[in-house]
């Protein structure tokens, strides 16, 4: 074969190879997923793949952001991106200053609703910011061998991340205490708190305490979609 023809073939193959990469472009993709035709095409390709055995089904072991309805998934994604959760801004500014508030808001916006373990680390972050030197041991009612626990109508996963976040505070798994609050208990402690909205619309409450207060043990409580970190004695006395 003539060298120039060979060169042309090689050049053409490289141009095609590069074109595939250029077309797999983030912005083209973002523009495409907004159209219904994209979903129709995707479904056709998926059925084609299944027909020819090219689609191997795995168990979905990361259920985060998973939704069967593609249009609903897209809607949720956009909603999530624009959602601004509640943040007790005035209290945080008075305690830690506006600069810290800005950083904290940024952190929570990145992690809120990002995945199942996100509530655990938002809680850890709040404890570290406001109760760092007040807690000796934090008791949490997650004692079984499961990776996720249901509390306050949401999931709490990877509790080890909470331990890492609030080190050197010890996180102790212990459920022999009334961790689900009664209405009267809830009303008695629902004051003088910093409140932040975590994932799944969970309200996370941390008590405001004097920084020279005594170092003591705290417990995790829940009431409907709210959670509290509070000393056991104060809850029982309340």
């Amino acid at each position, binding site marked *: 074969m003539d060298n120039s023809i*060979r*060169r042309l*073939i*090689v*050049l053409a*193959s*490289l*141009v*095609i*190879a*590069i074109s*595939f*990469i*250029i*077309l*797999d*472009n*983030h*912005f083209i*993709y973002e523009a495409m997923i907004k159209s219904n035709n994209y979903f129709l095409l995707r479904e056709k*390709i998926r059925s084609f*793949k299944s027909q020819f*055995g*090219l*689609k*191997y089904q*795995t*168990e*979905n*072991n*990361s259920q*985060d952001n998973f939704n069967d309805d593609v249009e609903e998934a897209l809607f949720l994604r956009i909603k999530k991106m624009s959602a601004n959760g509640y943040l007790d801004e005035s209290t945080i500014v008075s305690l830690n200053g506006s600069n*810290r508030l800005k*950083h*904290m808001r*940024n*952190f929570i*916006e*990145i*992690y809120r609703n*990002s*995945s*199942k*373990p*996100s509530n*655990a*680390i938002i809680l*850890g972050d709040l404890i*570290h910011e406001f109760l760092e030197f007040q807690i000796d041991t934090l008791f949490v009612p997650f004692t079984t061998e499961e990776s996720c626990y249901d509390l306050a109508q949401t999931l709490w*996963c*990877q*509790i*080890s*991340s*909470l*331990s*890492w*976040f609030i*080190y*050197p505070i010890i996180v102790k798994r212990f459920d022999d205490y009334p961790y689900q609050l009664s209405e009267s208990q809830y009303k008695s402690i629902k004051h003088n708190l910093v409140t932040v909205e975590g994932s799944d619309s969970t309200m996370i409450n941390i008590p405001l305490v004097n920084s020279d207060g005594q170092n003591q043990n705290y417990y995790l409580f829940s009431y409907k979609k709210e959670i509290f970190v509070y000393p056991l004695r104060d809850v029982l006395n309340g």
Partner: protein
Amino acid sequence: MYQWAFLIFLYLLGSLFINVLFSDLSNRDCQLLSPFFGIGFSGLAVGLLLIVRIPLSLPVFFLCLSIILYTAKMLMNKPSLYTFSWSQLFSGVLSNVLSISFVLYIAVSCFFVLMASAYASPDSTQYEGAGRYLEQGGLVHFNTPRMVFMLNGRLLIVGAMHAINRLFHGYSLYALNPTMCVWLIIFLAHTIFMLYRTKDKVTQIFLALIFSVTLGFYKHFFVIMFHIHSNSLAMIFFTLSIVSLYLYSISGEKNWVYIGSFEIGFACLTRVDMLLCSLIFFFLLNLIRTIDYKMIKYAWYIFIVSLFPWRIFALYYTPWDTWYVNSAQLSLLIGTNIILCLLSILLHKYNRMSFTLFRRFPLILGPVIILFLIFFMPEKIKLSWDLFIKYILLGHSTWLLLIISLIISTISFYYIDYRDKNYYILFIPTMLYLFMLFLLVAFGGYENVDHSASRMVFHIVPLFIYSLFIGFSTVITNKPKPQRGIFAS
């Protein structure tokens, strides 16, 4: 602002180290490599403190860096590789600071800090957690929850970066990955521009620009760039190590071999599975004809000194029966690297290196392994075929397009390889890496369970795209390279 200060610190620190280690490297290369060295050496310092059981704090961290810097300077002076004074060192750093690159770096890092955009996954919470744990004085203890997982899965480099950012009063580290990914694009575009200086300026700029846009906006690259994870940094270090080898094969400047050695060491500190990539790096290094015994010895020294203390420390804490990486797997990875090290050093020492045989090694060994598995462990082959080939490579649209592109570009390989013998260095790692992932899934995968190999394919993306552009440039230049023949054929 604190995070921005941290990112600038990484550049300055890297500049200091790179001037100590490679004083005769060109200013522009020093400037473009500085942030990557800053990350690597910061991670090393944190690792060293954890090994000697000193809780992390800013003064201790700076002290540890100073000791490493001083030791590096002494070691560099001793074998008479380079001789320079402290004043030369500071003038070198100053010239790196008073440069367009530094201004550009400040602008890029500032943009991503202000943009405050990041994508968090379940893994991100653990990287953030590992960073907080170290910053709050945590050390390696058996009684810390999931310490083994933290050691092998979340440390060293990424966890260390989160920790140091907190020491700098940063809150959450989100701008590091996008800044470094953009800086990688700038570095690679710069090398494309420099490699084809024989062409007219317009073609040079056009190629560099098209490459930057293609890689920068490539769907997976763009998304993972903002992902708080270890994938981006591992990909960056691995790409840099292989590109460094290619630059050595083109320029013959031995600094690039040592730079590559450092980069692959940092990659292995970032992710444990990068110990597979170090095999690819040293395999390719052995294929370069101009590499002598002394150079290969120093390359291995650098890799071993930067990596092994941490990995052996981690191995001590890793039990046999753990779900993430167990000590058998870790020992196997370290052991394979040691075997390759001994083999390559001895072959070079006694001049028994058969370049032709070494080059054909993957072509012989690959089918032998596959045949062995087909006959003796068919279930492993089936698992990897189903999980890696069908589900990951053909099932994910991005990887499917990448594989189609790879197959099409293979047509051009022999033509380009004839004109540029060094092209092998850039093109073959993609094949080798995918083959290694196939084996990894065969032995580490589980039926009907997703495998991290789906994310790991990403590590090879920039290198593959870079190889396509280098190949394209070679074809349009249409003349043999001046350095052809430096590579084994």
